[in-house]
């Protein structure tokens, strides 16, 4: 007996150390200089906790554990080596895996303990399972949309919010019934299945531009469901990890919603589908000025200060390496080149930074919206590559615009604005961008990768200094 108690105390101490390492891991992530140390700390904490658990006295059978660990590693390694452009869908998929684990363990725990489940335990277990299941299908849907195996266009129908809220409402009512009397075991499958359906329905109205918010929110749900699982299993380590993950997802969700000017309740209830179908119709053929790669290269070469604004279009065109060549060519000529990055540029928080870092652009040249906006009035050229709504000045001035109030990059304050764009077709949100019709704006029509490549060729051909 005493030996068992001691080994339990030892295990709890190991968990305590792991929790400390997890917190340090996130603390060291605050700056790129110490961030990799953070990963090490997390890995050591994880290794300690898993090894400690494997030596747990209660384990009688290692066969299936070993099979699980091996198969998980076999699946995990390729997921660790996906291309950087596929990181958003990989992240969504990993939220789904995390939620799957939590939901399955929760389900098993219910059947192992029922019908004698204390009320509070049943409440936490319900929370774990509801959040876990809706995160599971929601994340799979998000991953499918990001991977383009599912239609990316938002699907919106009448009464959508009502249907979704009713589904969630029913799941909560069933959970309450179970808390009142956990012996109603036949009700249990409902709190798994209904949230599974809700997760699908929740993502159906989501378009690509909303993805950064949705992924953050799912991240937060995954964390909270894991924390709930910690309550059920009385594992303080799991509570800590879940709370950290939940807090992280929550902070990112709030950041993203601020950056899109959505209210916080809008985020919490997952009502992302934009209620704007009013855009169609008034597409006038306003004049635009366009330029060739040669002209663009001449203007860029003559500039002192250039700010490049990347968006999802750069990721789609895989143009980040050509952008690096452009950065090198201009820097070599003494041009000061920086990057202005909107929080919701791309498909997940920080997406653009990762792509540009992959292309070897120093991270001190990558500036956040708040850091760069003051620079635009002194900027000679703002070069926009594959970004649209985040540069739309209508967000500042046009109260009738669906994106009115959204904070934007003030590219229109630069002396010259260049926009690389395939055609004049409206952006993802289908919103007209008056930026393209300004006198100071030059439209560079073409594929982002090809056009940037042409500019680089013109620059290296010389003759523009």
């Amino acid at each position, binding site marked *: 007996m005493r030996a068992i108690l001691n080994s339990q105390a030892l295990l709890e101490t190991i968990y305590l150390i792991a929790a400390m390492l997890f*917190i340090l891991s*996130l603390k060291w992530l605050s700056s790129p200089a110490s961030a990799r140390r953070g990963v090490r700390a997390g890995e050591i904490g994880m290794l300690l906790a898993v090894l400690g658990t494997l030596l747990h006295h209660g384990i009688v059978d290692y066969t299936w554990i070993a099979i699980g660990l091996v198969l998980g590693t076999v*699946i995990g390694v390729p997921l660790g080596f996906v291309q950087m452009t596929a990181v958003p869908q990989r992240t969504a998929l990993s939220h789904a895996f995390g939620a799957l684990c939590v939901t*399955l363990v929760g389900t*098993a725990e219910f059947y192992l303990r029922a019908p004698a489940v204390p009320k*509070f335990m049943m409440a936490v277990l319900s929370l774990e399972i509801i959040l876990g299941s809706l995160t599971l299908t929601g994340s799979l849907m998000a991953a499918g949309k990001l991977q383009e195996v599912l239609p990316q266009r938002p699907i919106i129908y009448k009464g959508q919010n009502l249907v979704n809220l009713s589904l969630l409402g029913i799941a909560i009512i069933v959970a309450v019934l179970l808390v009142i009397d956990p012996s109603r075991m036949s009700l249990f499958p409902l709190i798994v299945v209904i949230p599974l359906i809700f997760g699908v329905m929740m993502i159906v109205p989501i378009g690509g531009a909303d993805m950064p918010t949705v992924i953050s929110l799912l991240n937060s749900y995954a964390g909270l469901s*894991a924390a709930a699982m910690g309550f059920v299993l009385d594992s303080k380590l799991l509570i800590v990890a879940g709370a950290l993950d939940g807090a992280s997802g929550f902070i990112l969700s709030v950041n993203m919603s601020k950056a899109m000017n959505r209210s916080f309740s809008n985020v919490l209830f997952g009502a992302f589908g934009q209620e704007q179908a009013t855009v169609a119709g008034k597409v006038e053929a306003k004049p635009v000025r366009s330029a060739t790669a040669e002209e663009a290269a001449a203007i860029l070469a003559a500039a002192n200060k250039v700010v490049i604004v990347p968006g999802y279009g750069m990721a789609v065109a895989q143009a980040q390496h050509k952008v690096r060549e452009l950065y090198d060519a201009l820097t070599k000529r003494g041009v000061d080149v920086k990057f202005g990055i909107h929080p919701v540029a791309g498909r997940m928080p920080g997406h653009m*930074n990762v792509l540009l870092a992959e292309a070897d652009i120093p991270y001190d040249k990558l500036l956040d919206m708040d850091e760069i906006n003051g620079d635009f009035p002194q900027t000679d050229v703002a070069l926009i590559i594959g970004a649209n709504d985040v540069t739309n000045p209508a967000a500042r001035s046009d109260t009738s615009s669906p994106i009115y109030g959204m904070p934007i990059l003030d590219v229109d304050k630069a002396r010259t604005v260049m926009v690389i764009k395939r055609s004049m077709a409206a952006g993802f949100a289908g919103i007209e961008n008056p930026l393209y019709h300004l006198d100071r704006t030059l439209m560079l029509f073409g594929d982002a990768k090809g056009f940037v490549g042409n500019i680089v060729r013109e620059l290296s051909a010389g003759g523009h200094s």
Partner: protein
Amino acid sequence: MKLDLLTSLYVFMLAAFIGFEVIRRVSPLLHTPLMSLTNALDAIAVVGAIILAGEFHEHHATLAKVLGTIAIIAATSNIVGGFLITDRMLKMFKASGSKKA
């Protein structure tokens, strides 16, 4: 039992506060690695899955084994994949001074 619960709530509250303070300081530059790292840490849920799959259960033994094993697979793939990709991403972030390797 009741006290255990209260302790757990304390732990949750404190961890949430620490989480907010620590994560608020993470530069927007690193928000993608932040998400993949927290996701890997979150997969500590594997501990619960291991105990579920490995402990002796009088009833529902098969259910516990099957669900536990699938849960271990899901969580382990998050641990392995999550740490790997986070490190790969962070390796790419270089300052102006340090020339590319």
